[in-house]
């Protein structure tokens, strides 16, 4: 992989794509390393395997429209939500982090000569997940489709976490469903996680599953929920990985 431009960073706040409003982000991971130096030591000594923590800082342009930045952070202040951070973008194979965070700081700023801006700080509230995107795309036809597979290399049995984010959904009463499948040979796939069909946008779902195969892919389906469906269209993102 070449060096990575930051212009494609993808930030998902819950089931919303905030990238179009953000222009600066920092994910900071820390680990306690308790000082255990005692008499007689020459150089400080510290313990390994201390408490891990992380913080996501985001800044950008304010938007007070429905479902946008201001509404999102106002609702989130003090509450927990699942966020996704993909430094190189969220198309298939690209690395990212999924996390549960609490928004502890949200600021709206405006100076007379400039644009209104926002900044927010989100602190980790549980494990951080090291993931690869399985796809970030739009589907617009009734039926099922498979996303391309991603090679996770490690083939040992372990618990994986899968994430399904419904960003937009349009048309008359459509539903979008997804599942995660795995394969040992990149040819024959079996389902390891099934997500409940969603009929509204701005949602994110997570599910754990046992996995022992090196290839994983997403499979999505759009169906009519009640009275048939007209012009269905849904944008979604799927990722899979494991907890730190």
């Amino acid at each position, binding site marked *: 992989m070449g060096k990575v431009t930051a212009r494609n960073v993808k930030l998902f706040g819950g089931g919303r794509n905030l990238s179009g409003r953000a222009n600066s982000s920092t994910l900071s991971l820390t680990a306690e390393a308790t000082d255990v130096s005692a008499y007689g030591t020459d150089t400080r000594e*510290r313990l390994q395997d201390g408490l891990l923590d992380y913080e996501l800082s985001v800044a950008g342009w304010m938007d007070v429209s429905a479902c946008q930045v201001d509404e999102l952070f106002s609702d989130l202040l003090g509450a927990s939500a699942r966020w996704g951070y993909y430094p190189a973008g969220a198309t298939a194979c690209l690395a990212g982090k999924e996390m549960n965070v609490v928004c502890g700081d949200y600021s709206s700023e405006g100076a007379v000569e400039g644009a209104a801006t926002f900044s927010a700080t989100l602190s980790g509230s549980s494990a951080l997940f090291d993931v690869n995107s399985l796809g970030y795309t739009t589907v617009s036809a009734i039926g099922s489709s498979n996303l391309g597979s991603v090679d996770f290399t490690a083939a040992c049995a372990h618990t994986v976490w899968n994430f399904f984010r419904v960003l937009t959904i349009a048309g008359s009463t459509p539903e979008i469903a997804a599942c995660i499948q795995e394969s040992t040979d990149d040819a024959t796939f079996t389902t390891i996680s099934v997500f409940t069909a969603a009929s509204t946008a701005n949602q994110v779902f997570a599910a754990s599953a046992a996995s022992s195969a090196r290839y994983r892919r997403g499979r999505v389906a759009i169906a009519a929920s009640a009275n048939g469906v007209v012009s269905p269209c849904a944008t979604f993102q799927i990722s899979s990985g494991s907890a730190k």
Partner: protein
Amino acid sequence: MAKISARNVSLGIDDSAAACQSISGRSNTATMSFSAEAPDVSAFGTTYRERVPDGLKDWELSVSGLWDGVASQIDSILFGILGASTRVAYGPAGSTSGCTKYEASAVCNDYSVEGSVEGAVTFSAIFAARSGSMTRTTWT
């Protein structure tokens, strides 16, 4: 010795499988800071501060550079050793035979990924002393 260009700095860290990985090709800033406690023992009547030598030593290695999310590259290495024991090797003048080499057991206790829309995605990491002394030898 002539003045030294920093473009050849050598940086190696052990990944989560204890395999030494060179991160020089992704890094563009490195700072090794050494410190030593020197307790102040000034008392009434002294004109100048007095300090005791031979205090506890410490060091910290700060590294930053260009982020890479591909398997086995910088994100995978640093995320994998966050909070864990590792070894660091630092060569301010490079790693050719005879160049100075600092090496020690360390804990990576800080790892950040940062992106501003007009720039490249960058990383920074801090390694702190874990156990034993920092050794100063030469690359072979």
